[in-house]
């Protein structure tokens, strides 16, 4: 689904990302792990054509992302709070995203019904703007919005950060469902090694922009990662 060749990103001669080759097959759930500054968000931003690569290219379903915009119709993402529109209520935000993804109001209402337990009555019908919600609730709204419109590629940067324990567990269940859905290629990053090993089939470790580990997730993976990050 995602094909990376010779990808580098430099800021003032400073190499922040260098991926000679990487292939993420259809339907895989792919995890990205690394310390701060390892290049995780840079990689996601490159896939979404929010920044330009210095060299190389990324193909999303055979579409070169910085040449054509056709990948946008089947790719959705939530990177950070700058993906939220602060002056909208959560409902209005969902409808807005829905309209952009060809879903009408009824579709969205039906879609939102399945997230009732994640929302915990704190998102919908609150008469509050997104900017006035707590960080955790903002995150929930952004994550759910990223699932609108049956996307084939879902990119989530640090989905577990800022969430309360109950929601983390619910989110893990939800992401597992997505991971098992063979029509969805899921890309997530996380600092929580436990969560990410539970959700993904494959984990790639970035260090200073380079891929230093590429492992298929097994029950031993968590131990292996913990050893790797213990200095």
């Amino acid at each position: 689904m995602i094909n990376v060749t010779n990808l580098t990103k430099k800021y003032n001669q400073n190499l922040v990302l260098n991926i000679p080759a990487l292939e993420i097959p259809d339907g895989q759930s792919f995890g990205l792990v690394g310390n701060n500054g390892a290049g995780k968000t840079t990689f996601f931003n490159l896939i979404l054509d929010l920044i330009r690569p210095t060299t190389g290219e990324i193909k999303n379903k055979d579409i070169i992302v910085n040449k054509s915009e056709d990948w946008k119709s089947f790719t959705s993402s939530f990177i950070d709070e700058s993906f939220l529109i602060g002056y909208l209520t959560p409902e209005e935000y969902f409808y807005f995203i829905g309209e952009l993804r060809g879903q009408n109001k009824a579709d969205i209402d039906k879609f939102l019904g399945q997230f009732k337990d994640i929302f915990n009555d704190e998102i919908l019908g609150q008469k509050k703007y997104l900017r006035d919600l707590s960080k955790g609730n903002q995150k929930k709204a952004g994550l759910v919005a990223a699932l609108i419109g049956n996307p084939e590629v879902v990119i989530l940067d640090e989905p577990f950060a800022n969430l309360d324990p109950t929601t983390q567990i619910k989110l893990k269940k939800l992401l597992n469902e997505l991971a098992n859905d063979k029509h969805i290629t899921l890309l997530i990053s996380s600092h929580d090694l436990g969560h990410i090993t539970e959700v993904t089939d494959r984990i790639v470790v970035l260090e200073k922009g380079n891929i230093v580990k590429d492992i298929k997730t097994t029950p031993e993976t968590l131990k292996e990662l913990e050893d790797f990050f213990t200095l």
Partner: protein
Amino acid sequence: MIKKFIALEWKQFFRSSYWQKSIALNIFLGLLALYFITVFLMLGIAIYPLLKKTMPEKDPLVVVNSFLILYYLADLLIRYFFQKLPTMQVNPLLVLPVSKKKITNYILLKSVVSFFNFLPLFVYLPFSIMLLIHGYNSFSVIAWFISVYAVSLSINYLVFLINKNNKIFALAAILFIGLILSIYFNVFPIGIYVGKLLGAIVANPVLSIIPVLVLLGLYYVNYRLIHQNLYLDDLLQKKKTSVKTANLSWTENFGDTAVFLKNDIRLIWRNKRSKMAFLMSFMMIPYGLLFFSNPVYKEKMPIIFVFVAIFTTGIFILNFGQFIPAWDSSYYKLLMSQNIRYRKYLESKWILMVAMTFILFLLTIPYVFLGVDKLLLFVMGFFFNIGFTSLFVLYMGAFNRKRIDLNRSAFMNYQGTGVQQFLLAFGILLIPMLVFYFVKEFFGFNAAIGVMIFIGILGLIFKNYFMNKIEQTYIKNKHKTIHAFNQKN
């Protein structure tokens, strides 16, 4: 401790990227301040001889005293809208061993260091000196000076209370309107009473203790209020706004741009700054009266009418349009990763600008009572603005690199304004004036109007062509714009 606070303020001021980036803007604000200082200074010096000349039988001090109340009321109103309340980043200090007493006193004393408190000195001081020169008792003059300045500072603290407390706001609003009405209908000659009070102080300088006590009293009330409420969930809390939803289904008539149009309307209405840009547009409608009623302009500078016509109908394009796409800067990444076409996004902004220009044009129709030629000017302004200005502004937006934080307040907020914005406003107003001027010199007034309308219609006819060019420019600049909008101050 105070020294440390001041050091913090100093760093906050000079290290803000805002300061480092927009020198041109700071020069502009500096000039504005200089202008006001000069005007006030001239007023302070000239008021005595002027009153002596126009009303030789009256004592200038008595006349000034009886009018002071009007100045104070105006001062109160201006401060309420424009004066920024002194805020310090107190959150990190609360848990440190700094007493709340010190923080409170510092906040309150800092509020005195405001342009609004220095400005009156430029009137009071020269006027007092004039009084001394003209042989008034020096104790009386000093007492008068202390009193009037104490009242000015009291207004400073009163505004503080009005801003923080809804009950006091309601009370102040009622009193304010009551006073204005009573002055207007002459029911209660408040000016005379204030004049008499100040007269008593001049006659008996010891009485100047009264306004000083009022000032101290207000300081104390403020002190109590802040000291008791210096908690995260109280005074320091961000204001939350209640949701106002409106049915915007009528926008569906605009087809596939409706989704953006709906959003833009919500953006304008739910954010202070954009709302102000919108409301200010309507306040400019009567602007033309100032020029049309003055025969000097009619004879010597009819070109100024072109300015009025373009400005009045195009003010929304100027105010709102020049910050496209910066209005959406805080969620620009979202828009750029969604399945949308730039064209639809730009189209919706264009429709919005045209619609508002049309509404503003409709509101200028009453000018027809001042002559058909006036209406023709506004017709010209309308066509020129929708055909030329709107597209020009959209094109320039592709080079907009300044983020706007929608949550910040509107007044005197120049965030997102760069040299480009000033040049743009300048160009938009100057180009049509020049074109009009030259055509009029050679072919007359009607021909000039015709040419301007023609330019506008030409723009409309070739709109698709221009929109394509504009869209391409936006796409070319996409990554630069995303990067720039990511830079927070």
